[in-house]
């Protein structure tokens, strides 16, 4: 089946089965590396992207169900040369070790800051509760989100 999806502001034609999880379209057809395969079960958050303004597990949502919703991935926030304040803050706080979960952390934080530009530490932790990190950089992530909120002011 042929579909048109809008990712990071660009429209793309994609041919894949309707039940294809969006994750594989983003990674393999569009060659985006931000969303990662972590569990395929919606449990860990490594695959997160923003779909229709909502934080979305791309391993669960199918291509067919995306419809006309606009998709933003990690790549849509900023670039190596011009990082988004969240990406800048994650670098400044060195808020990663392996970095595999960072995509989900940053995307979840983006959705949080869009809704609440000045969150408390507790609000940040609650917003990130369903994002799993195994390296143990949680405290640095909280500091990075707080710093990004400051930067945006």
């Amino acid at each position, binding site marked *: 089946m042929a579909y048109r999806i809008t990712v990071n502001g660009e429209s793309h034609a994609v041919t894949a089965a309707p039940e294809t*999880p969006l994750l594989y379209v983003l990674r*393999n057809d569009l060659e985006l*590396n931000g969303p990662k*395969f972590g569990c395929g079960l919606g449990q860990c958050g*490594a695959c997160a992207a923003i779909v229709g303004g909502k934080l979305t597990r791309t391993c669960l949502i199918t291509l067919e169900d995306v419809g006309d919703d606009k998709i933003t991935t990690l790549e849509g926030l900023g*670039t190596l040369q011009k990082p988004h304040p969240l990406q800048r803050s994650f670098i400044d706080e060195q808020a990663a070790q392996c970095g*595999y979960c960072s995509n989900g952390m940053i995307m979840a934080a983006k959705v949080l800051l869009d809704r609440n530009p000045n969150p408390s530490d507790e609000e940040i932790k609650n917003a990130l509760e369903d994002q799993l990190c195994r390296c*143990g950089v949680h*405290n640095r992530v909280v500091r990075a989100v707080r710093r990004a909120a400051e930067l945006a002011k």
Partner: protein
Amino acid sequence: MTEKGLSRRRFTQSLGIVVASFALAPRAAFNQAPGTLPFSLRNNRRLEGWIRLEPDETVTIFTGKAELGQGILTALAQIAAEELDVGLEKIRIVGADTSRGPDEQYTFGSQSVEQSGSAIRAASAEVRGILLAAAARRFGVRPEDLQIRVGIIASLDGKRATFWEVASADPSLLTGDIAAAAAPKKPSDYSFVGKSVNRIDLPGKLTGAPSYVQDMRLPGMIFARVVRPPRYGAKLVSLDETAVRSLPGVVAVVRDGNFLAVAAKREEQAIAARNALASAVHWSDDAVPLPDIADLRGELQRLRAETIVVGASGQSEPAPDQAKRVSAEYGRSYLSHGSIGPSCAVAWLKDGRMTVWSHTQGAFPLRGDLAKVLGMPNAQVDVVHMPGAGCYGHNGADDVALDAALVARAVTGAPVKLQWMRDDEFAWAPFGPGMAMRVEAALASDGKIVDWSYDVWSNSHAMRPGQAGGVNLLAAWDLSTPFAKSPAPHIPQPFGDGDRNAVPPYELPRKEIRNHLLLDAPVRNGSFRTLGSHGNIFAIESFMDELADVAGSDPLAFRLAHLRDPRARAVLQAAADKAGWTPGKKGDGRLGRGIAYCRYKSIGMYAAVMVDVEVDRKTGAVKVPRVVMAADIGRVVNPDGAKNQLEGGIVQAVSLTLMEQVAFDRREITSRDWSGYPILRFPEVPSIEIILMDRNDPSLGAGEGSLPPTSAALANAFAHATGRRMRALPMTPKRVKASLS
């Protein structure tokens, strides 16, 4: 790697790290050397095997160590920049790669700064010395009349040349065996080493640059998945693959004995075919009887074992009879590495050569085991390290490399990317083995320990590829002509295996420590961060508190009374001062504070930790609001990088202690996703304060040593709060409630 695929250049630019190499001739430029050289130089003598000056005025550093998310490539680049006197931005660093880098075996045991760092320091000092001498000849001056500043050599009379200009005059200048005669800089002259430097690989990883083996895209690449049996021991009885072969995109169904995999053009097609194949295969009812998880400690002690005394002193004297004898038993469950990204590899059989891109911890040992299984000479197999998700030890990285290679062999010519699914990783990767510990000690009337007897039971924590007597790769055991598993190695103290840190650091006039290496391994075993140290320090440091209690001593004072090493005493005192330790303060049933000490591997970093707990007696939930750690890691290369590692170990330890255990019934692993194997989440993570001791001693690795004492201090804090002691990990709410009732 061409056209559509990700170019090597793109990788390089995005990461500041040269991570991928695709068409380099194998090199065998490494000779033997005498034993006085830094460890890693002994089998890798050639200077050009470590350092190369590039035409674009950069320096390429080759290390045999791998970036596992611990930031090692950044720390090694700092060391090279320091000794060479070039800017950090000039350094490109290549991780473990059998096609072109030094063989430094494994990246494990917190040894990379010690081993690769020493080698790179010596090689860099040598390069600097050679360049200086060549420049002196060129300028007609004495080397001591030259100055080096950021890659430029200048004479007093104003002559100047860059390193690259000097080197380009003689292509053989920076080749040959390393003499290791050049004296490295004095630490007091360091300008990069000792400063917090941002990780060179993070900007790429945080903006979606291709960074991981999972991100590799090669021309014509296909996707594969494996179908594993439902349990250890089950055999493939029959398979009807006709329907699967006709599914969209399916390229091949690969079966060899009990090994089963499928490849397809698209990734989601491979996953759909995997699910279909799982329904089309019939496995035998065979099972390996698994231990009763409710009595794990007892079950482990009943397995066949080889007993070795790993530490003893004072045994010629009889045990003191006037002393008060105390004993206790402790246990730890099997642990999963829980990498966020399931293991993945890319394999490509092309023109008779097999190249495997892998997030292995040991590219060279893995290459050897792969070659054995594939029936190819080592020289025709290459393993190139590419980052994956953090591994924390021996996860499925090596196994999936063989899986991918087996599929690549079946579909010759096409590169194959194979990633395990979540349940493959949770059910089939090696686990940190369950452990049982028993301690008995005697206390004299003056409150001093006068006798100590210790036993630890566990399977080997060291079952990696590259070991003698077999092959340590999952699929190799399942082939129609199977390979045998290597027997457990014997790793002597002080490193040890299940007995790592089993010999207590305290002054004990009489002691005997026995390691019972279990010979039957019903549950697949392997290396989890710190090996046996986690269980042993949990037992020893819990027991020190129990003894202090019997002796009527304060836990901090009791430890100090048995410790002579000034660095050990210093970390304990520093942590106590920072946390505000109040001797003799009682827990109130809900709040408590615990302390523990560990010198990792007995010769590594020192750590003392204070953990605060808050116990909810109704729900059995234990919260950890605050952790304070003092760590002595010798000379610090990158303070923030070291702190990041120490913090990570603390968070992981809190998670292990409170909630982690691999679940199984008597036939199969039942914890196969994150709901079955929960880990610590944001709201549960403690605040952490780290004190790095200011030392000028040789660097000690910081990757692991914060983990063992944190578990023990948490258990001690719980006992302090409640007056009840938890001797089995994890301290789940159910167990907590049972202990409080």
